[in-house]
């Protein structure tokens, strides 16, 4: 599919918005009450779809019980109006609060679950809410609650379909603005990063548990908001409006429209709420026709009717030049930065790392080499909190790292890249870097949602830093491209820029030269030296001896989980244990040595 020019696309998007707005204004003037009623249903589905899209589309968490939040909003408004005689408007803050609390209640215990289990738990939660509503006296049992007063505005009761229609539009516009600001916020980027690769997100500094919890809370807020509107519209509610089937309908809105896509969700709601009405002529076969229609639509458009767009136009501040600044730049070189003492890690009966001790000094480039399976990556995983050590101690600037979550360790100043590239492939290059900057991104969420000047200043500052990082690795021209579309060498450099986004004092690189040709390796060597010169201490795992011997100040050699040698590169190359365990000893080495030696000096 050809991607149109962004300017053309923006113009056609504006025209579409104008057309929809005009249609929305004209509709109540020409349509019957029945049509307006269907339109209100579509608007309600729009709101619920947008809310569920936060959970499913942005954060990638499958939720089969979303109707529960809808129910909580509706029942809160109904009960507060009928029992405590609140006005409709007065019920909104408490019912939103109830919905948000229930988002925490369902979110918290399920955060560590993976998608399928999560789906089952949310399904259970949805049913629990419905059954409670059916069985309690206060909620009116199966008969529900009626006599809910319509909302009033300046003494005018909004009770006719046309008035409710207008109210629903106001609610929808509110939700649209809210979800759009959210999707562009720091939190929105964090959601997408955990959908793309949760482990990588945590390991580069995103507090994934909190971020997922916030996805539930934000989704619940919008769901509760929709529920309040629903109660006001009908003046009566009962448990049959909040069934499992309703949750599935909301999910269909999101999946059919396009997960993560706002226009897609809006369109999905039109289909889910509108198509069954349009199929009334089928009489008893209506549901059947609807189901067939859904299947055909999904087969024709498996990504959704209007899939989420990835490439964004990006305007990074052009005047942001110069090298990025790191905390370590002014600190004295040579001081002890990281101390590893007797580090041990067992996997089942296998001891991957055994009583390993070493010290990292500020300002050096330290390489860890050794045969495959020697335990090098396990050391990295222990340092970054991805794996918990079985024994021993790790102190970074005197702080014990052993029981800290990976994102906390990143915030302290230890960041990393991965052996196999783990970028967020569907996010743009600059968004990848912005996610990497998360630990030091201090902008407030409310500021971003309300578009406050302070938040704009923060964002501008972060975009400037982001551009400096991209410039530093030579990728500023690719800022708006999807990370997954970048050439291999560029992906490696982007991963380094993302790791530098956390302003680390120590950068851990796991086989950065894997799959690079000699030209790219030579560039990588220069880049590693430049990183060190900015005050970042570098630890490197690498098999490429040209690179290791060329850039390292010191080399540690591991075999079978233990340290078998350490020293300057030249000593290591002559060490008989190292030659025996790792380098090998045949005519190839002698033959390659002169050329490689020439490159190390470059």
């Amino acid at each position, binding site marked *: 599919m050809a991607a149109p020019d962004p300017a053309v696309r923006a113009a056609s998007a504006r025209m579409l918005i104008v057309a929809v707005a005009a249609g929305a204004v004209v509709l109540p003037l020409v349509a019957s009450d029945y049509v307006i009623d269907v339109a209100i249903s579509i608007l309600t589905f729009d709101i619920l779809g947008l809310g569920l899209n936060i959970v499913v589309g942005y954060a990638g968490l499958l939720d089969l019980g979303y109707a529960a939040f809808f129910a909580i909003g509706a029942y809160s408004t109904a009960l507060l109006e009928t029992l405590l005689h609140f006005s409709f408007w007065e019920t909104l803050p408490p019912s939103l609060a109830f919905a948000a609390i229930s988002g925490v209640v369902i979110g918290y215990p399920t955060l560590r679950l993976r998608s399928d289990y999560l789906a089952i738990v949310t399904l259970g939660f949805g049913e629990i809410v419905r059954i409670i509503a059916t069985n309690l006296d206060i909620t009116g049992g199966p008969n529900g609650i009626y006599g809910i007063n319509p909302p009033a505005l300046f003494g005018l009761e909004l009770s006719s379909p046309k008035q409710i229609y207008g109210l629903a539009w106001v609610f929808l516009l509110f939700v649209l603005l809210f979800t759009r600001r959210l999707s562009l916020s720091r939190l929105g980027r964090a959601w997408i990063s955990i959908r793309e690769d949760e482990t990588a997100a945590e390991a580069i500094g995103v507090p994934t548990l909190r971020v997922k919890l916030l996805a539930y809370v934000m989704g619940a807020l919008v769901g509760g908001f929709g529920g309040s509107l629903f109660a006001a519209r009908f003046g009566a509610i009962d448990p049959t409006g909040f069934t499992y089937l309703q949750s599935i309908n909301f999910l269909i809105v999101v999946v059919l429209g396009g997960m993560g896509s706002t226009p897609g969700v809006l369109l999905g709601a039109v289909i889910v709420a509108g198509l069954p009405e349009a199929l009334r002529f089928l009489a008893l076969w209506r549901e059947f026709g609807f189901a067939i229609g859904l299947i055909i639509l999904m087969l024709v458009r498996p990504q959704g009717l209007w899939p989420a767009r990835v490439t964004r136009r990006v305007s990074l501040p052009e005047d942001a030049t110069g090298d990025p600044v790191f905390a370590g730049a002014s600190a004295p070189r040579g001081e002890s930065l990281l101390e590893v003492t007797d580090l041990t890690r067992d996997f089942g009966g296998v001891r991957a790392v055994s009583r390993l001790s070493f010290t990292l000094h500020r300002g050096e480039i330290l390489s860890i080499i050794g045969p495959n399976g020697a335990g090098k990556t396990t050391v990295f995983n222990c340092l970054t909190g991805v794996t918990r050590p079985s024994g021993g101690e790790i102190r970074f600037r005197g702080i014990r790292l052993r029981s800290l979550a990976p994102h906390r360790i990143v915030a302290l100043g230890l960041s990393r890249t991965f052996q196999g590239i783990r970028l967020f492939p569907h996010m743009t290059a600059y968004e990848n870097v912005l996610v990497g900057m998360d630990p030091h991104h201090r902008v407030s969420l409310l500021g971003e949602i309300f578009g406050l000047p302070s938040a704009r200043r923060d964002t501008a500052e972060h975009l400037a830093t982001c551009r400096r990082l991209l410039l530093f690795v030579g990728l500023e021209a690719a800022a708006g491209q999807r990370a997954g579309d970048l050439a291999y060498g560029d992906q490696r450099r982007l991963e380094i820029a993302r790791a530098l986004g956390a302003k680390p004092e120590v950068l851990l690189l796991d*086989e950065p030269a894997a799959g690079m040709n*000699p030209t790219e390796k030579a560039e990588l060597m220069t880049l590693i030296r430049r990183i060190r010169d900015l005050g970042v201490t570098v630890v490197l795992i690498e098999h490429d001896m040209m690179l290791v011997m060329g850039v390292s100040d010191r080399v540690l050699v591991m075999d079978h989980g233990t340290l078998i040698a350490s020293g300057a590169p030249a000593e290591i190359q002559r060490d008989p244990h190292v030659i025996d365990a790792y380098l090998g000893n045949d005519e190839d080495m002698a033959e390659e040595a002169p050329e490689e030696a020439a490159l190390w000096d470059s």
Partner: protein
Amino acid sequence: MGLLTIEDLHVAYGKVEVLRGVSLEVAEGEIVALLGANGAGKTTTLRTISGLVRGRQGRILLSGADITRLRAHQVVARGLGHVPEGRRIFGPLSVEENLRLGGYLLRRDAAEVERRIAASYTLFPRLAERRGQLAGTLSGGEQQMLAIARALMLEPRLLVLDEPSMGLAPKLVRAIFAIIQRIRTQGTSVLLVEQNARQALRIADRAYVLESGRIALSGPAAALAADPRVRAAYLGG
């Protein structure tokens, strides 16, 4: 007539043209290296040969039969083994189960499957030691050996290898190249994609250099290893 013949192959992902008219040939009993920078289209070439990616234009012949339109499992049945980049072994299965899956197309010929598993263990004694171990817990070098052994289970006429030395210790890199030479003596031809151009050119008979989706250079491996352009770009000086 070569074992593998590719004529004017064009491949695109969306709008991005990756291969723009690649032609190459592998003769019976040859080791042919395919070199090039990252993004040149090496992996795409291999994936198109084995039917994982569909070309826009061009033909692929294996032993004279047109395999251009066949699906991956049909190409495998015609005698092509593919060892993918990054090994792609089945981590939660044991070493032996991985090998059995490699012999999936042998169907119910249990005796033959057992014979070939035994042959794999002869070629890779290390795998015999680890036969019951979960493949995901093997070291990188062992995983690469398993990936090769799995592809050899159907005794392919042509083995295509995508960066077999990636991420391996220097000693193991040499072991892998020695194994590739042994595979050839057992009657399987090899098409090899490698970043380690020096080693690849040492064991190959002929080589092609791919640049931006086109064959920029080709010839006997020794001649390419001496070519100043190749030395500058791929051999590091």
